């Protein structure tokens, strides 16, 4: 299991590095998909099947497809040739270093990694999946936010359909 953890973390990290390093926007977007797949595998390893699957379904399968779709319509060659000024590189390096320092300082003060959390199968006994547990929480404790978000999304989707219908005429 630890072997699989390192495998998928390496995949996710390599994808992340690929996003930054690749000059070709399509390659960068594709590296991001690989990073998402690694991340989803890590979620699944934590018994969080629903979160892992949603990671693939929503991010890798829908959002990144739209990204690629837009990138395809752009002129990629121009982006590959573009020079990057020194100021930009220094600025980006400074922001990255600052962020890394922030993360390290936060993680060294908290005991996130040391706490032992019981496995999902042990919390509710065998037979209840994480889907059931998340569903029950969403529709009992968090029913109000769920309703609000649901109405918001419904309005947005219906609005999109109405707008596109008008354009057809």
């Amino acid at each position, binding site marked *: *299991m*630890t*072997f*699989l953890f390192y495998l998928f973390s390496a995949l996710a990290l390599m994808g992340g590095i690929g996003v930054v390093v690749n000059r070709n926007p*399509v390659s960068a977007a*594709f590296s991001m*998909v690989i990073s998402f797949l690694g991340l989803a*595998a890590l979620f*699944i*390893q934590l*018994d969080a*099947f*629903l979160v892992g*699957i*949603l990671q*693939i*379904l929503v991010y*890798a*399968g*829908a959002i990144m*497809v*739209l990204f*690629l*779709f837009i990138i*395809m*319509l752009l002129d990629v060659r121009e982006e590959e040739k573009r020079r990057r000024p020194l100021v930009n590189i220094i600025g980006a390096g400074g922001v990255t270093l600052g962020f890394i320092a922030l993360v390290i300082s936060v993680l060294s003060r908290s005991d996130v990694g040391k706490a032992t959390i019981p*496995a*999902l*199968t*042990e919390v509710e006994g*065998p037979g209840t*999946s*994480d*889907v*059931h547990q998340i569903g029950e929480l969403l529709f009992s404790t968090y029913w109000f936010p769920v309703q609000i978000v649901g109405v918001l999304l419904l309005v947005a*989707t219906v609005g999109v*359909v109405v707008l*596109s*219908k008008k354009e*057809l005429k």
Partner: protein
Amino acid sequence: MGFQPMGRVEMIGVRRRSSRDFNRRRRPCITPQNMGWKPMLHSLLPTAASVLSDHMDWHLIIAAVIKIVVFVFLVTLPMVAMSVWAERRVSAAIQDRVGPNRVGPFGLLQAVADGIKFLLKEDFTPAHVNKFYFWLAPALTMVPALLTCAVIPFGSRLFDEKMVIADLDVGPLFVFAIASLSVYGIVLAGWSSNSKYSFLGGVRSTSQMISYEISLGLSIVPLIMIYGELNLGRIVQEQALNGWALLPLWGEGLSVKGFILAVPIFISFIIFMTSMFAETNRLPFDLPECETELVAGYHTEYSSMKFALFFLGEYAAMIIGSGLAVTLFLGGWSLPFGWLAPESVDAAVPWWHGLIHIGVYFTKVIALIIFFIVIRWTLPRFRYDQLMRLGWVFFFEIALANVVITAILLAIFK
């Protein structure tokens, strides 16, 4: 393994046993020179095993590998090849022709001849393409289609082994998630080919697949609400005992509630099947590869085995789509009227019942594949704006309304 939520106790037991084996089998004075391959294997295997897997359950892995090899490589892949043959024979029958009938009895070996032809043809890569993605794209269409086999239950139990590769609690979501990745193959093929026909095919295909994914996902929500379950194995078990989703004629399905709920399920089924046609890029929705406008769409520049992979990917997606439709709407591996149905998911099943269940599943899938083929050779192609309007303006709204109606019906017939 990642897919099976295992109890902690079991895992610890496995780890202890393997470390004891390791100590017993190690032979300290053997050098690589004087030992044969057998003792070397013995001393190596436990080490490799203990490094690779603290928690791995070898029985589970071996069973999974056997199921993957048999179900995916020995059954589904040949079915892909045979459905190409079936497509040509059925289309010939519809158009009053003979079709391929020379290679083997009834032309059954035509698929083998086609396969050899694809392998032996020149694998030509045009100079103007982006090579990396041009090579990657065919694999990316084929692999997701085969990956989705993992969660579809193709039988009840055989020799006390569940006939599903990964018994996930998020079965339908897994299928949609992985199937949504197959867009990448088409997008990248269209983009990397660097030709206008490929590109237009890729763009069309992407927007089509994204549009119909929504109605596809929404169409099964009523079904999941009725069963209250996302595990495909348990959905099939429920249908085996209480009537198929589309045919509630026995068990608890034989009631007013069962008949009334069959109406939204039927609407779901229509939306699901139509969206499946669009998702697999088949006629009447095959605009991405529409010959009269786009030469061959996103695979215009491909030849030889790379072209064959696109072809096989399309048929594999069709087979998996049929498998999912059978599992969700037509009772999966179960016989009608509760014949030979096991009492629960965990109940023991005699081996010949298990074999019959597997046979029933594949019979249903083959029937649906033939349905796919007949539709392809019956209906004319849609226009692109009609296709998009059908997806966004009709199916999306109907599927949404269907969810609401099902919720109301469920509340009334509680």
